[in-house]
């Protein structure tokens, strides 16, 4: 038995994965599920100590859910799956000649195939006063890891003040989390309003008003001149001169790919590590990249959907299956995950030109906003604030390239999925609608027989007679009362 095992382990190739974020989590699920362990001995390096967790769900942790709930592969999982995890170990360099990965604590692992999934890090803006020596001033945090989350939770002061730098999706999620924890929150952004990457100025202003109802005040067109406080954060000063006192400063100013490792290994790096549509590093056939640390044809990725598609492609490559058409990105669809405010957007914000048709609907009173972009008769973009129930349907038009109806306003009729406007059929055999039956009762039909004579209802199989009786009971009384 052990003989067999050893032989098979000798025959297996060594696959090393650097990074243990959601991209790796997905990749491992697919590899394990598709029998890759027969072919590979897998080793994973993860900088964080907990195992693999779902970063997208961090705001749940901010809202009080235990961290263990979002960890989908804890240390025991790796143990059971027979995958070596070096948790809390940072990779220092890659030796491509010797095909070795060298990490901290003197850990060195040889590879036959290497997957770089180093992800990205939060951007820390250059603001005077933000740093205390090399580290961030106490009370100032980014919102990226479980550790960040724990630090933020630790610094929360009920009734205190918080400032969030950056009004993008992550900034608003953090802001809502802090508001729910009882803090007064201000969101500071260089753009005129929140979610400037997804919404135009009008949309931003509607969103700003909606957020204000949740106790989140957005300050737009603002840059931070300095961070105030010596031993801990006490506030920030804006360039315009205004001072915002605060107990907690959260920075959500975007992310940047972590590219030091591929760069030092001599791999091609532009904005991120360059891979082709099969996730291959073209200069080194043993190395692949996936997730936020890669760029494909100049495009970078930061959401779940494209990265899961990349995982599908990469598993096919690693298992040496027939070459598929490779990874191809699609327009991303963004929804704000903040309870109480609905925002949906796809297609981005673009300048108007003559070939583009725009459809804009605003209701000041309902604080809702909708803007659609139609190009050559096809829906290419949408922004919805306040009520996004139409967006699921609009996506179908976009994704399936269904031409927008000649009467553009037909797009807005949310006919799909609502009930109540249509009269149900009461008598199945003779296709008689409830409205027809009610009309007959109002015209004097007072029993089943009369209804049958007038409408045919109830004269087929008779299944509907109890419904008819109920309608008679309700409506006969009503017509009598009315009379």
């Amino acid at each position, binding site marked *: 038995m052990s003989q067999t095992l050893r032989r098979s382990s000798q025959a297996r190739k060594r696959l090393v994965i650097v990074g243990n974020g959601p991209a790796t989590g997905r990749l491992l699920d697919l590899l394990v599920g598709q029998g890759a362990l027969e072919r590979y001995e897998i080793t994973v390096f993860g900088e964080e100590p907990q195992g693999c967790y779902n970063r997208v*769900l961090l705001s749940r942790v901010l809202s009080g859910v235990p961290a263990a709930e979002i960890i989908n592969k804890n240390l025991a999982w790796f143990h059971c799956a027979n995958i070596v995890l070096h948790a809390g170990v940072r990779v220092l360099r890659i030796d491509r000649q010797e095909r070795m990965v060298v990490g901290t604590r003197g850990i060195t692992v040889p590879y036959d195939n290497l997957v770089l999934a180093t992800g990205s890090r939060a951007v820390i803006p250059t603001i005077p006063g933000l740093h205390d020596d090399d580290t961030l001033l106490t009370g100032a945090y980014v919102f990226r890891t479980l550790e960040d989350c724990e630090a933020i939770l630790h610094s929360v002061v009920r009734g205190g003040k918080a400032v969030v730098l950056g009004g993008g999706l992550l900034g608003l999620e953090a802001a809502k989390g802090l508001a729910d924890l009882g803090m007064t929150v201000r969101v500071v952004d260089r753009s005129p309003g929140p979610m400037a990457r997804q919404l135009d100025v009008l949309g931003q202003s509607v969103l700003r008003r909606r957020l204000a109802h949740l106790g989140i005040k957005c300050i737009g067109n603002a840059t931070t001149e300095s961070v105030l406080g010596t031993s801990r954060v006490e506030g920030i000063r804006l360039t315009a001169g205004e001072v915002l006192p605060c107990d907690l400063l959260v920075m959500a100013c975007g992310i940047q790919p972590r590219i030091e490792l591929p760069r030092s290994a001599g791999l091609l790096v532009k904005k991120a590590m360059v891979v082709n549509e099969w996730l291959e590093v073209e200069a080194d056939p043993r190395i692949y990249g996936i997730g936020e640390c890669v760029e494909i044809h100049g495009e970078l990725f930061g959401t779940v959907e494209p990265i899961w598609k990349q995982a599908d492609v990469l598993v096919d490559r690693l298992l040496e299956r027939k070459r598929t058409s490779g990874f191809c990105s699609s327009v991303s669809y963004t929804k704000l995950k903040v309870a109480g405010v*609905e925002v949906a957007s796809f297609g981005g914000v673009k300048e108007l030109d003559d070939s583009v048709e725009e459809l804009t609907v605003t209701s000041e009173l309902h604080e809702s906003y909708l803007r659609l972009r139609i190009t050559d008769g096809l829906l290419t973009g949408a922004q919805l604030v306040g009520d996004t129930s*139409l967006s699921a349907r609009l996506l179908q038009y976009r994704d399936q390239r*269904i031409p927008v109806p000649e009467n553009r306003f037909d797009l807005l009729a949310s006919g*799909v999925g609502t009930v109540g406007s*249509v009269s149900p059929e009461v008598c199945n055999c003779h296709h008689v609608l409830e409205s027809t039956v009610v009309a007959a009762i109002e015209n004097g039909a007072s029993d089943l027989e009369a209804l049958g004579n007038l409408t045919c209802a109830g004269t087929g199989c*008779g*299944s*509907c007679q109890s*419904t008819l009786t109920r309608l008679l009971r309700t409506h006969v009384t009503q017509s009598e009362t009315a009379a």
Partner: protein
Amino acid sequence: MQKVRTHCPFCAFQCGILVTPGRGPDTPQIEGDPDFPVNRGKLCIKGAESARLLERSDRLLAPLMRDPDGVLCPASWESALDFVARSFEDMRRAHGANAVAVFGSGGLTNEKVYALGKFARLVLGTAHIDYNGRYCMSSAAAAQNRAFGVDRGFPFPVEDIPLADCVISWGSNWAETMPPLRQWFELQRERGGRSVVVDPRRTETAKCADLHLQPLPGSDLVLANGLLHLAIESGAVDLDYIARRTTGYDAAKHAVARYSPDYVERLSGVSERQQRQLLKWMAESPRALLMSGRGPEQHSKGVDTVHAFINLMLALGKVGKSGSGYTCLTGQGNGQGGREHGQKADQLPGYRLIENETHRSVVAAAWGVEPESLPHKGKSAYELLNSLGPSASDGPGIRGLLVMGSNVAVASPNAGNVIEGLKRLETLVVVDSFLNETAQLAHVVLPSLLWLEESGTMTNFEGRVILRREVQPPPPGPLSDLRILKELARRMGKPNALPSDDPDVVFSELAAITQGATADYSGLSHSRLATTQGVQWPCIGPQHPGTPVMFEEHFAHPDGRAKFFVVETRDAAELPDEEFPLYLTTGRVREHYNSGAQTRGIAALNSRQPEPCIEVHPACLERFDLAGEERLCLSTRRGSLLLRVKPTADIRVDTVFVPFHYGYAQSINLLTLAALDPVSRMPEFKLCAARLTKVLKS
């Protein structure tokens, strides 16, 4: 004249009917049985008109055989049966036992199902026996077996539906296809319960609902996983229940983390608001019931989709109470019993498994043969029909086929391919009462009895075993299915393989052999059933009352727990593209039953739905510049049909719907795709890519 109490010939509801036998040539009168607890006197139009089957002038009264010119001509029973027996025997000798196959039906009584399975295994010795139930509820059955350890369509009596505080009818249009069911939902609404319908079409069922979700065909799994995601996010899961009664929750929980509302919106077209509304209603209902029909099941991911449903109901802690949990609305009259007693490729009587050594031994001993002599698992329905002719893609082909009670030429996916296969057979034998599309291709047609002319038991969608009674004598000519099998067995040298042609005797053998099995009928007999309104299995002894409600204490797995399964969405086998830009889905209309072989011959029914219409949204007609056309050409990669157009705003703009009850040039299954679910082998009837064009005028 004395009214006789029996049951409708059609669907899995098996409504109780009272029959006043006709005098002489008069047709019997049929009315609903007010005392039968399932339909309480109600009938649908099909049931109300069912006696018209006896009036059909095209009833087959004598066996038919091909004359030298290839024309089907009347023949004597002796010559027809001799021919069939000799032909099958020759094939067996020349090409092995697996050269002959059997195809059964979810419309056959339990006795026939049992006898057919025994005939295949002992007389023909073939591994290849399957039936049209594979096209019906096989996905729901497989998922329930895996999750609960047992598969019974409804784990509680139908009269407990009104207990549900919220009912989700997912891909079932019961208001049209099973109208007598409607009364239970009306009661449920009167008690203040909510009703939700999930269907790409705004059906009559949907119009009566409090909420209608209209997802993209094939996105049911995404939507169900999304609901579980929301349940976890909102803290609606019942962690205590999960810990006490289930296994595998953590893995399922992590798997649905990806199914955030925006992802679900994009893939299903169902808005986040509707997702949240539905989840809220389910979570706040002490009893919530998710009931699926064929809509989400007839897909190449049907089993996984049902797992997603069951995961959701388990996580919410709803399974194990009457009127709550997950149920599947079985379609065919004996869809339930049909999958229990041995006409399925992988099964032996009592829901035993043909690949389980213990099960093989028990059945072999009861049948007086060696376990090794029993064939192993054979091909599933479509795979069987895709192997007809001298050779198949995976080895020797099937040269002889006995079809009993199924119209495979209409009911199968990619039916053109099946019809070609049927034509390649050396001997096709069809047992039926009418010359349906499959029988037209047969070498021998053997006429059988109609349901009022013989007795037998059926097991309805609640697992209720009921007795159908013989009401009137058959006309001279046709023989019962049991008699036909017995005669063939005798001619093939196994006169004692089948117990009898008396249904009562066959049932006794069946009941005894199921003792200790999952579907245990051992406490039942015709005489006991005659004095009851049916008994729900398992019923393990003459004094045992049956089992109306399952799962209250434990599930049927050895550890007593239900299992979560990690299920992920995957693409359908064929998705719309530029060439074929529409989703084609299929289903039923209220006037017809299955392939229409019975109902198309009843004028009162057929005159209301004489041909299939294509349901299409006016915006879709506008999109392809087809508005105002009376007929359109519908094409898929398998072929084209000319169909009458029924414009309706009740369907999604990207989807068209065609009913499947029609034959020849009106058979939508000529266009459907035979992609199969990897577990249940269910074909993907509910989704393929299609194109609509104008009819070319010559």
